[in-house]
């Protein structure tokens, strides 16, 4: 009897195995929506029906369920619910999806490895319905490789007029095409040139102890202050954080000003570091000097942001920075760990007439990179059916509505806030640990599809919205002052955008990863090398870098620039 029972076991196992395989196959076809009609893709004008009123008033539920997949950054922040399944993804499904017979799925995209994740999704024919990135060369690569379908902006305008008008009002329509074909729509980035969300903080209490009443405004002062901080034993590690650079290695302050437009077109950008360019060399020379003085992290090549943040919170670092929001956990933790500590933001200087001025004693013009005029650049999967394309457009238009955006940015009255401040904006409740809490950075990774920051009537109000609350110090005014300092720089032409190419730079796509890895390796060698060997080593490694692909990128960018396939520098920043 027992033996007979044992004999039946394999049969049972086979049945279970077969059923699970069949179930998996079934769920695949459900999720992808590949069985829907895909006529009209890649043909510019699609088969989308436009027989209803324009905009959200004309939205009607689809007859057959439509599934769309929206990418969302996964930043690996601890203590938060999954980015693809949380209170807000469910809220969107309930308030948008269910209303129009659309299933909205989210695809987590690791923030530090965007290209690999998208590559794998595209290769597996699992491309999200929309593909979005801040970085133009990345989206243009996807378009060039056929991962996106072309779109008709008139059709888009019909379905999403609010979104379209925002693009038009912010001069973003020029970024919708590449290689003569229209692929993209763009989210708006308010105050692109005067980015105010990123703030660097400095240990003012340490500076006071070593005789400073302000944050240093030039290199000489900074070296002096850091040396004194070290000598005074205020920290047991190197006071300034240094870590491996990314491809987005800017050496703004070391650029000749005004700029040579050709040099700017060839070298400036965030996709590949311009190692052989003189300004980069001079900035690395400065880092080499700081390293040999023992002012920056000694083993920086093994360091990362998590370490830096932990060290700042532990009261061991002089400076640390990040994006601001009403609740910044590392600032909370810093004040808890360092009672009595005082932080400062960058010094803003004023002349006798009260006008903003700058310390130029280094002989350097404090240039900055303007953020791109657009936020997310959004394209649509070549696998998306017309219905899926329309549903994705409806998603963007729905999210662009004031009430929806307000809810996504601030939450729901009675749950996330109960009172309003003197300007009439919600005072957010502490939702730490609660299921309903806003996702990282006030749900930004969801609403970034339509706009890049919380927008209010005035810049002061906008800054107040993201100034961290509940801390022993209030930084709202500091942030406003920094904003006006940047505004002054824009007026002087010291803040200017990166070039944007309207044709794909193929060599960039081919060599980007190799050059990124090579840059980190070379950077480490150069920063640590004997200052007497600096120039010789730099020259040798630059040569290798050029041979590894950078020369090809330069040549291709130059050709695109000369053919007129590149944006131009503002006149104020350009060498005549």
């Amino acid at each position, binding site marked *: 009897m027992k033996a007979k029972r044992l004999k039946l076991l394999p049969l049972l196992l086979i049945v279970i195995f077969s059923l699970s395989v069949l179930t998996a196959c079934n769920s695949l076809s459900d999720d992808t929506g590949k069985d829907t009609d895909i006529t009209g893709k890649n043909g510019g004008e699609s088969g989308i029906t436009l027989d209803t009123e324009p905009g959200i008033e004309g939205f009607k539920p689809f007859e057959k369920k439509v599934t769309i997949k929206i990418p969302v950054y996964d930043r690996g922040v601890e203590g938060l619910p999954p980015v693809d399944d949380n209170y807000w993804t469910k809220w969107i499904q309930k308030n948008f999806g269910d209303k129009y017979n659309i299933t909205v799925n989210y695809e987590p995209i690791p923030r530090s490895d965007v290209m690999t994740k998208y590559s794998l999704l595209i290769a597996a024919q699992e491309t999200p319905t929309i593909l979005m990135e801040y970085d133009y060369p990345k989206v243009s690569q996807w378009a060039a490789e056929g991962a996106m379908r072309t779109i008709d902006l008139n059709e888009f305008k019909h379905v999403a007029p609010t979104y379209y008008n925002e693009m038009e009002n912010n001069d973003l329509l020029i970024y919708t095409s590449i290689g003569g074909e229209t692929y993209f729509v763009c989210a708006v980035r308010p105050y692109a040139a005067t980015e105010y969300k990123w703030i660097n903080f400095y240990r003012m209490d340490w500076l006071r102890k070593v005789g400073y009443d302000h944050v240093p405004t030039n290199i000489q002062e900074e070296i002096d202050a850091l040396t004194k901080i070290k000598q005074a034993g205020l920290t047991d590690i190197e006071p300034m954080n240094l870590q491996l650079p990314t491809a987005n290695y800017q050496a703004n302050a070391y650029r000749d000003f005004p700029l040579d437009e050709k040099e700017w077109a060839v070298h400036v950008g965030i996709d590949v570091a311009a190692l052989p360019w003189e300004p980069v060399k001079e900035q690395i020379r400065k880092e080499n000097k700081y390293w040999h003085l023992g002012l920056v992290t000694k083993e920086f090549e093994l360091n990362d942001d998590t370490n830096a943040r932990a060290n700042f919170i532990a009261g061991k670092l002089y400076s640390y920075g990040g994006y601001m929001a009403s609740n910044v956990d590392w600032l909370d933790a810093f004040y808890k760990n360092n009672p009595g500590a005082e932080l400062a933001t960058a010094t803003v200087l004023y002349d006798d007439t009260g006008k903003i001025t700058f310390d130029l004693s280094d002989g350097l013009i404090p240039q900055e990179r303007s953020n791109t005029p657009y936020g997310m650049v959004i394209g649509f999967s070549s696998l998306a059916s017309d219905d899926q394309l329309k549903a994705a457009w409806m998603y963007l238009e729905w999210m662009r509505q004031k009430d929806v955006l307000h809810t996504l940015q601030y939450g729901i009255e009675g749950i996330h806030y109960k009172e309003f401040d003197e300007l009439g904006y919600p005072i957010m409740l502490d939702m730490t640990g609660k299921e309903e809490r806003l996702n990282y950075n006030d749900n930004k990774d969801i609403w970034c599809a339509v706009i890049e920051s919380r927008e209010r009537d005035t810049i002061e109000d906008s800054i107040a919205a993201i100034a961290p609350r509940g801390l022993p110090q209030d930084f709202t005014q500091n942030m406003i002052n920094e904003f006006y300092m940047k505004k002054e720089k824009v007026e002087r032409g010291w803040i200017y955008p990166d070039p944007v190419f309207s044709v794909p730079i193929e060599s960039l796509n081919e060599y980007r990863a190799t050059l990124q*890895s090579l840059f980190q390796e070379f950077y480490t060698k150069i920063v640590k090398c004997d200052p007497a060997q600096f120039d010789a080593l730099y020259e040798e490694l630059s040569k290798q870098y050029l041979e590894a692909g950078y020369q090809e990128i330069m040549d291709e960018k130059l050709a695109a620039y000369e053919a007129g396939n590149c944006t131009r520098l503002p006149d104020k920043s350009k060498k005549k």
Partner: protein
Amino acid sequence: MKRDWDLYLLLIVPLFLTILFKYGAYPGLRIAFMNYLPAKGYAGSEWVGFETFQKVFKDRDFHVALRNSLLFNFAEVIVSFPMPIILALILNELKVPRFKKVSQTILYLPHFLSWAIIGSITYTLFRTETGLVNNMLVNFGLAENRIPFLTENLNWAITYLLVGVWAGMGWGSIVYLAAISSINVELYEAAMIDGAGRWKRMWYITLPGIKPTIITLLIMTLGRLMGSNYERLHAMGNVNVKGVQYQLAIYIYEKGLASGGFSRAAAVGLFQSIVGLLLVLASDKFAKALGEEGMI
């Protein structure tokens, strides 16, 4: 067949999975001969013949990766391959059953740790400035200067190999222990009567008894001479040691997957497999020439 139908039925599952995931993927190898663009699929991508292979073989980085992979894999054969055998022989000689079981469990455990965790532990222990080992060496006066275990090529290579031994030898010894357990006990009894001590019994009975297993595993190890483990290299690597850390797995990831170069990744993968197969065949032939059974 009729008698053992249940066993044949059970065989269907692994057979199906092997065909699906091993042989089913073979048609995909064609992307090595195409300029494959995932969004365009097989049909929309262009055939380029051996162009990708030519590009790869001309690439200096490929030569570096190939050299490092071969060097490290040879070193693994020399350093790591004998360790499980030695460990199995030692474990076999332990006479207190409880101690033996506890030792075995402790030795197997590292196998279950991911390379990400092992890498993290390694860095915590061996960093130059803040590593526990360096702190101890300096504080106890055992070393005057801190040792750059992980930031100099040779030191890193040694650490990399030894950590590999630590992580794998326990698990690797299981096969040899199983082989030892199948040796006829009477042989040991006879040897003892003849006055053979532990060393003699180990040398003349245990080792010859597990020789076929050693040869089979050696042939399989030689077949992996072209392989490399991305997870391990990534977890243990840093920019200072790229000169030795840059192996084929890193090459494939960097120039293949991360850059969307699927054709290049497939070309290198195919090259690795073909060389691996040739190595297996050659070592099998060599084993047979020496009078051993081989495995094919």
